[in-house]
């Protein structure tokens, strides 16, 4: 994997007329991982969207080197299509994929329409899309929501493997996440 880097410089985020956080800075380089922690509504998801470049920051800048992969609460898979076809759309956009379906335990679900999948299965499907994208920087917004214990272990293993290969993980989660060398950033320290 090519060298990647993501850095936030004195970021601030405003929602409506409320300042969620300010003066938030960090820098991650190849192989590093960061967990964003904090109570509900403190701005973890907003920060993830700012880092992805999908939402503007109220102040501060984000520097990125490398492609961004995002998993949030929406799987971005056509709900009425069978899982295989819905993932196939992204495979045609991202290029051929390896064995991520078997890896995520989705092989048996390929004929099932996405809207019939459980929350955890949808999360696994979104992770399959992420793996197929082969992005350098992973932004995971509550990746453990709805997953069973085996699913949690799987996500942790995938993140560890991604970092080992030189990728970056930014994980927004209020749940504990087991990853060697995982840094923590508590948004409570940056509340405005």
């Amino acid at each position, binding site marked *: 994997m090519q060298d990647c880097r993501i850095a936030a410089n004195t970021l601030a985020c405003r929602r409506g007329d409320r300042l969620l956080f300010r003066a938030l800075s960090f820098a991650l380089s190849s192989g590093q991982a960061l967990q964003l922690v904090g109570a509900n509504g403190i701005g973890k998801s907003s920060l993830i969207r700012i880092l*992805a*470049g*999908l*939402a*503007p920051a109220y102040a501060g800048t984000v520097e990125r080197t490398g*492609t*961004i*992969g*995002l998993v*949030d609460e*929406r*799987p*971005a*898979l*056509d*709900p*009425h*299509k069978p899982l295989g076809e819905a993932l196939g*759309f*992204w495979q*045609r*956009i*991202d290029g051929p994929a390896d064995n991520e379906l078997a890896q995520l335990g989705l092989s048996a679900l390929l004929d099932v329409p996405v809207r019939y999948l459980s929350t955890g299965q949808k999360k696994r499907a979104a992770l399959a*899309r992420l793996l197929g*994208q082969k*992005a350098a920087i992973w932004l995971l917004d509550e990746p453990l929501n709805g997953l069973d214990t085996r699913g949690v272990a799987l996500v942790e293993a995938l993140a560890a493997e991604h970092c080992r290969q030189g990728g970056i993980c930014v994980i927004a989660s209020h749940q504990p996440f087991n990853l060697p060398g995982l840094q923590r950033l508590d948004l409570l320290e940056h509340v405005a």
Partner: protein
Amino acid sequence: MSARLFTLLRRDLGLLLLGGRRGGATLPVLFFLAVAMLYPFAVGPDAPLLARTGGGVIWVAALLAAILPLDRLIEPDLEQGMFDQWALRGISEELIVAVRVLAHWLSFGPPLMLAAVPASALVGIDADKLRIVELGLLAGTPGLAALGVMVAALTAGLRGGAALGGLLVIPLAIPLLVFGAGSLAIGGESGIALTAAFSLVLLAITPFAAGAAIRSARG
């Protein structure tokens, strides 16, 4: 890049033309034919009156049929986070919108032009007038498609966006209707040329207007 374009177009056509569970192109066509069928019942069996006004009715029916798929043009993809994923892959909203206008047009323009043949028989207009109606629809429906996608993007994410979208399209489509249906009254090609011109303006504006609307809705 062209492989990506083809992939996007194929998905859009699958959703809009074939439609799966949501009806695709069938619903607008049936609606269009239903209006053409109702009209003679409503005004009575006065053949000269029907022939004189039938072309205009076909135009109004086409406009209303084009409004039907409005709520599934942009909103579902915005809700499911598709636009976020495209943005992360460097696929611009403008490109997505341009592809979607093409898919939207393919899924109602040609089907309506085909359905205009039986509709013209129902309202009793002759072959010569049918030719002008068909040419007018060919010139006007791309503009209607662009207008539909632009309004769908502007109202995506709003509460009651679908109903509002229909209301917004109608006044904006008046120039298309005036020139398109007007070409029947004067019986010339100049009205069709003006319809085509207005269509081209809409086609040129839509990717940028809709792209900006989608980016701001994503915020």
